């Protein structure tokens, strides 16, 4: 090689070489960096920790399993295997001979099988050739056919031969198996013994971080079969809105929340709760026999968790409600519902922050957001449970904070008044209904439409009360009643709070507010009707009135006191709404009613509220004149004189002028407005201002006020409020404030939940620090909500989203559910639960009636119990029949329309899964059944409690026995009222149907089999029952055995009883109407199928399209 030719260089070659070397090494490092960067992902850390946890658990299980394995048995088996081997070795020549024989036959079989298969293939081919040549009418057709037949014969020979050889081979195999079989059984037994250990060992391999898994998880190699991997669920019918289109969700939450669907990783708290729950179920035999073992195992597992030294932390915890969510047998299995459909958050995300986790409190926020190194936050912070969290401004659907989890129910369950097991969400929707949020804020959602106006009609206000009272009431309703739902509009934080409003402005605001209240009162009283109400004719007795109010049923809907003894401090304090059940907040609190109104009005109101205004929610209790007078006298004693002592400042003409002009200049020039105002006296100005103020504050949304019909509700529509982007919520300049209620320091987090919560808690808060004109200030009134109530309302608002769900996943969309939901809505609208138990809930009145026998009935079995026509008539007019005439509580007259009644009747019938029309009404009852039934009736001494006297609806029979509590319903009515099948069922298991009923259980269940036992089985042969026996025998053709057998058959006996009870009514009716005609009753019309719920716009069409199309 020649020496190199020297040439001039621009740069030093040596320097370039050095740069080359350094940059190449740099590139190598960069390559390493890119690989490392791609490899280090937050979720891997979670998976590694979880594998570690699993490993520890399996190892401890393994130790336990190894201890449990029966060592001696194992050794015994090994010994026997060896013995068998020795045995074979001893008879080796025989064994070898058999094996050789088998080998030979195997070979024969193989050959025969091959011949058979080839022949079969040839035969199939030949058949095709033959068929084809015949069809195509070729000349060689017959020849091919003949050839086919020949081959077929040959094939049959081969089949026979194959069968023969197979048989011989099997025989040879059996001979060999004699020798090997023994060893095999021993080995199988051994496998069985070590099965659990083997299984655990296998499991251990999958969760070990070392060994093969280490290599499988190495960077660049982790595409082969890594144990660290992204798990996901594709939900093709739950959608994410990418605005142009809805795309299926892809949830990857389980990548980090690995144990979410695996029982065994509960937190200690949850484990304790579950243990208790399961144990209770186990103890009360609610679990089927074959499942009991599983449940016991599960309890043992949970106990182990409770005793474990360390608590499982998130994200490795099991879902706390596996039976409801995530579990494969639950109604919301993981593979069908995923996670983000309920919790929201970013589907597809695999990093803590990006997933859209939202801290539930400022404290949590601080912990999450802190990082070891703020410059490089990453998985290395996770050890300290710092998630390097920061608000992701680009996530449009952050998760619901912990206290609002159940908000996620609404989007699928909005067609239901009641979500099964959704305690929080049910309370939340009821709270929204109670406060009537829907009146001012349109919520286009089945649950919140078609509900009553929350406030009373104001068109007759002058008949009811005085302007002075009204002024004070509007100024601050809470001063009159601590539990009122009427919110405070005036003198609120943004108007008068010295910490927010500077002094001169505050004084002006007070004058303006005074003027507005005056104008409202003036307007309402000037427009009010003045019907003359007649006062009660005679004087009422307040004492009797009090008794009536407490017993006749008023307490189902009303509260009569606002002072309570605080359980903690033992002192009296003002009551809050949530001190009482929801149902008792339905009507207003009766305190101070005497101050508010006067005798004539009360008298007429309690006689029939509908006289005052047609939509009055209060039903008529059909009080007699005297009763009404008594009640009036009592209610008038409920005075609150101190309320009327506060001073009323007269309206400031200047303020009225300013405000009225403010409205006028919108349409008129300044001069014209002035001229117009000059022409108006103060009263007219007030009326004008009052009208504008009603518009301003939206009074008409809750109250019926003439002249304001059909106006749009005042508030923001909330139909999809939960989907509104965060930046559209006006936080003003407020992020911290001192609560006006309790003086506590509140922090408003930067999320929608926190905004809404603080808004409903303190509606004017976002005006703080802002400079606004009087008219521009926020005007949402203050409901004085408790923290829980505010949280619940927030929950509903958060749940009202525009998330799209395929109809298959929507709850209660089928027509039966629609019928029932319509009924349920009526039930809560008319507060039926104030007196009755419906759907297993309610009967608020129970707290005021000591004796359970004087409680209104439990309606849980009403659908299967009552005949629909009877129920229809009863609801229309409860005076038709009195079932338990000795009750003080009265079923009131609601003046239902036919349609409402039908809706309710249908609801009960559907709930009881009963037919609308009971065909048994016209059934012929065999005489023998009636006689046997009557005898059994006598034997069980049913008549001791039940009356069977004929019924005069006008004059029901009075109790004849001193101990009225033992009285039972008049059986005469059974025929008209009860469903035939239900009677027998009821007699068999009354306590199961209505726990705590007075009806004795005559046919107790057998603890072992669960069958019914008859008390007459033994009794029939006792002397006391001789007469009955003789009475019965003829009906069994004198067959005593048959009689005895029947007497042990509880079902047969109750059926006889049923037929007898049914016949009583018929006989009595015949007696009542000589021509033998059954009295006619109004027939219910076929209930109209209620319309589908008006879901969000467009949804319904899709729903129907989806149904039509099917899937």
């Amino acid at each position, binding site marked *: 090689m020649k020496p*190199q030719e020297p040439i*001039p*260089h621009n740069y*030093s070659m040596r320097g370039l*070489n050095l740069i080359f070397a350094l940059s190449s090494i740099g590139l190598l490092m960069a390559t390493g960096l890119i690989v490392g960067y791609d490899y280090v992902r937050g979720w891997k850390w979670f998976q590694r920790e979880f594998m570690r946890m699993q490993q520890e658990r399996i190892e401890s299980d393994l130790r336990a399993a190894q201890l449990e394995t029966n060592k001696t048995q194992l050794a015994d088996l090994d010994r026997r295997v060896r013995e068998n081997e020795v045995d074979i070795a001893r008879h080796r020549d025989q064994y070898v001979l058999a094996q050789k024989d088998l080998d030979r036959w195997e070979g024969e079989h193989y050959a025969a099988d091959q011949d058979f*298969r080839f022949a079969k*293939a040839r035969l199939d081919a030949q058949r095709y050739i033959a068929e084809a040549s015949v069809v195509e009418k070729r000349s060689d057709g017959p020849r091919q056919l003949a050839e086919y037949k020949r081959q077929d014969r040959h094939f049959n020979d081969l089949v026979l031969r194959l069968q023969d050889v197979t048989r011989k081979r099997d025989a040879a195999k059996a001979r060999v198996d004699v020798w090997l079989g023994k060893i095999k059984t021993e080995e199988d037994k051994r496998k069985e013994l070590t099965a659990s250990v083997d299984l655990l060992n296998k499991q251990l391999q999958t969760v070990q971080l070392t060994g093969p898994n280490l290599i499988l998880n190495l960077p660049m190699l982790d595409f082969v079969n890594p144990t660290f991997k992204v798990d996901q669920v594709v939900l093709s019918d739950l959608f994410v809105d990418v605005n142009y289109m809805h795309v299926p969700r892809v949830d990857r939450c389980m990548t980090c929340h690995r144990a979410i669907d695996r029982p065994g990783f509960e937190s200690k708290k949850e484990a304790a709760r579950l243990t208790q729950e399961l144990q209770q179920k186990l103890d009360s035999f609610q679990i089927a026999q074959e499942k009991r073992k599983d449940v016991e195992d599960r309890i043992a597992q949970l106990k182990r968790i409770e005793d474990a030294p360390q608590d499982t932390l998130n994200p490795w915890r099991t879902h706390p409600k596996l039976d409801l969510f995530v579990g494969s047998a639950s109604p919301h299995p993981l593979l069908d519902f995923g996670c983000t459909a309920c919790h929201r958050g970013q589907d597809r995300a695999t990093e803590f922050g990006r997933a859209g986790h939202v801290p539930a409190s400022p404290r949590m926020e601080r912990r999450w957001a802190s990082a070891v190194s703020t410059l490089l936050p990453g998985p290395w912070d996770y050890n300290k449970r710092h998630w390097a969290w920061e608000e992701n401004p680009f996530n449009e659907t952050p998760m619901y904070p912990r206290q609002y989890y159940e908000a996620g129910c609404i989007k699928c369950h909005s067609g239901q008044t009641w979500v099964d097991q959704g305690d929080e969400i049910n309370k939340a929707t009821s709270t929204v209904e109670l406060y009537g949020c829907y009146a001012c804020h349109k919520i286009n959602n089945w649950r919140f439409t078609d509900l009553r106006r929350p406030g009373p009609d104001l068109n007759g206000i002058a008949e009811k009360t005085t302007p002075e009272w009204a002024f004070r009431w509007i100024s601050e309703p809470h001063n009159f009643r601590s539990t009122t739902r009427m919110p405070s509009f005036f003198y609120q934080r943004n108007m008068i709070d010295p910490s927010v409003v500077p002094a001169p402005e505050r004084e002006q605001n007070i004058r303006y507010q005074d003027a507005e209240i005056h104008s409202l009162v003036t307007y309402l009283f000037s427009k009010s009707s003045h019907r003359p109400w007649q006062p009660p004719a005679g004087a009422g007795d307040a004492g009797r009135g009090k008794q009536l109010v407490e017993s006749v049923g008023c307490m189902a809907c009303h509260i009569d006191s606002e002072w309570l003894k605080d359980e903690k401090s033992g002192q009296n304090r003002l009551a809050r709404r949530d001190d009482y059940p929801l149902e008792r907040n339905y009507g207003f609190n009766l305190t101070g009613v005497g101050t508010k109104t006067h005798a004539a009005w009360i008298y007429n109101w309690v006689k029939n509220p509908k006289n005052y205004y047609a939509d009055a929610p209060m039903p008529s209790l059909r009080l007699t004149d005297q009763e009404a007078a008594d009640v009036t006298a009592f209610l008038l004693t409920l005075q609150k004189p101190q309320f009327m002592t506060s001073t009323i400042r007269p309206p400031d003409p200047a303020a009225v002028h300013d405000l009225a002009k403010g409205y006028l200049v919108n349409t008129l020039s300044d001069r014209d407005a002035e001229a117009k105002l000059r022409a108006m006296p103060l009263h007219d100005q007030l009326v004008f201002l009052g009208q504008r103020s009603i518009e301003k504050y939206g009074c008409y949304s809750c109250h019926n006020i003439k002249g304001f019909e059909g106006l749009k509700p005042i508030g923001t529509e909330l139909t999809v409020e939960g989907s509104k982007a965060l930046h559209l919520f006006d936080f003003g300049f407020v992020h911290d404030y001192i609560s006006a209620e309790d003086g506590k320091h509140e922090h408003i987090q930067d999320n929608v939940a926190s905004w809404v919560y603080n808004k409903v808690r303190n509606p004017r808060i976002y005006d703080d620090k802002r400079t606004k004109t009087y008219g521009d200030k926020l005007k949402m009134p203050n409901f004085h909500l408790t923290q829980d109530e505010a949280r619940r309302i927030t929950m509903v608002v958060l749940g009202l989203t525009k998330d799209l769900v395929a109809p298959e996943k929507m709850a209660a969309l089928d027509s039966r559910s629609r019928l029932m939901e319509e009924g349920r809505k009526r039930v809560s609208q008319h507060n039926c639960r104030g007196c009755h138990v419906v759907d297993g809930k309610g009967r608020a009145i129970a707290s005021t009636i000591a004796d359970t026998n004087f409680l209104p009935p439990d309606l849980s079995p009403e659908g299967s119990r009552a005949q629909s026509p009877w129920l229809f008539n009863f609801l229309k007019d409860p005076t038709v029949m009195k079932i338990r005439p000795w009750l003080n509580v009265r079923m009131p007259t609601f003046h239902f329309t036919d349609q409402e009644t039908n809706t309710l009747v249908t609801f009960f019938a559907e709930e009881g899964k009963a037919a609308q029309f009971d065909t048994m009404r016209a059934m012929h009852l065999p005489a023998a059944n009636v006689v046997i039934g009557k005898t059994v009736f006598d034997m069980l001494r049913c008549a001791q409690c039940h009356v069977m006297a004929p019924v005069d609806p006008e004059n029901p029979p009075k109790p004849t026995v001193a101990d009225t509590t033992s009285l039972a319903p008049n059986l005469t009515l059974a025929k008209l009222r009860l469903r035939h099948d239900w009677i027998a069922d009821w007699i068999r298991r009354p306590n199961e149907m209505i726990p705590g009923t007075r009806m004795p259980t005559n046919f107790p269940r057998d603890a072992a089999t669960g069958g019914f036992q008859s008390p007459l089985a033994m009794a029939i042969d006792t002397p006391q029952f001789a007469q009955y026996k003789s009475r019965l025998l003829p009906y069994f053709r004198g067959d005593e055995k048959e009689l005895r057998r029947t007497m042990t058959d509880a079902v047969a006996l109750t059926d006889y009883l049923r037929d007898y009870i049914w016949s009583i009514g018929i006989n009595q009716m015949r007696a009542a109407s000589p021509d033998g005609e059954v009295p006619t009753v109004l027939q219910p019309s076929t209930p109209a199928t209620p319309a589908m719920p008006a879901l969000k716009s467009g949804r319904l069409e899709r729903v129907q399209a989806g149904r039509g199309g099917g899937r």
Partner: protein
Amino acid sequence: MSEEITPYQVVPKTPLAGSAAGDIREQGEITRRNFPFVLTAAWLALTAALGGLTSVLGRFMFPNVLFEPVQRFKAGFMSDYAVGEVDERWKDKFGIWLVRTEEIMYALITVCTHLGCTPNWLPTQNKFKCPCHGSGYYKSGINFEGPTPRPLERAKIFIDPSDGQIVVDKAKQFHQERGEWVDPESFIKL
């Protein structure tokens, strides 16, 4: 700076006057004799880096997550299937034939083991026949004709204890030629 302020020497240079020693600034160019250590290191590092980057490209082609249809599905109850028949109801959706015989029930994967076509079930001839190259299989899945080298594969099949339904899991497959068809997971014993 000062040295730069003085005007340049206006000396036109001849091309390749580079023999002048001043212009040959370095003799660091590559020769065979003194292949320097620095260069060796540089080339090694560069080769390694490029190799690394190339394998990054390779790794890029293997996604971490698949959007394939689910491998595991519930196939209803045993009573839904007639004895002795090859059931084709899951063929289109999941690519599975369910076969119920007198003794057992098993799930065959509808992929020909020859070149991956989907064979047809011919009830009249009682065999699976692949349209691509004519491979034939018995009802059991054993190959008997055509070019295919091995029998059809069976999928994991078991009864869900919680509801008694048949569950088929395609993720786990059993090969007859490896003797895996005796595995209790490869069939349901009736």
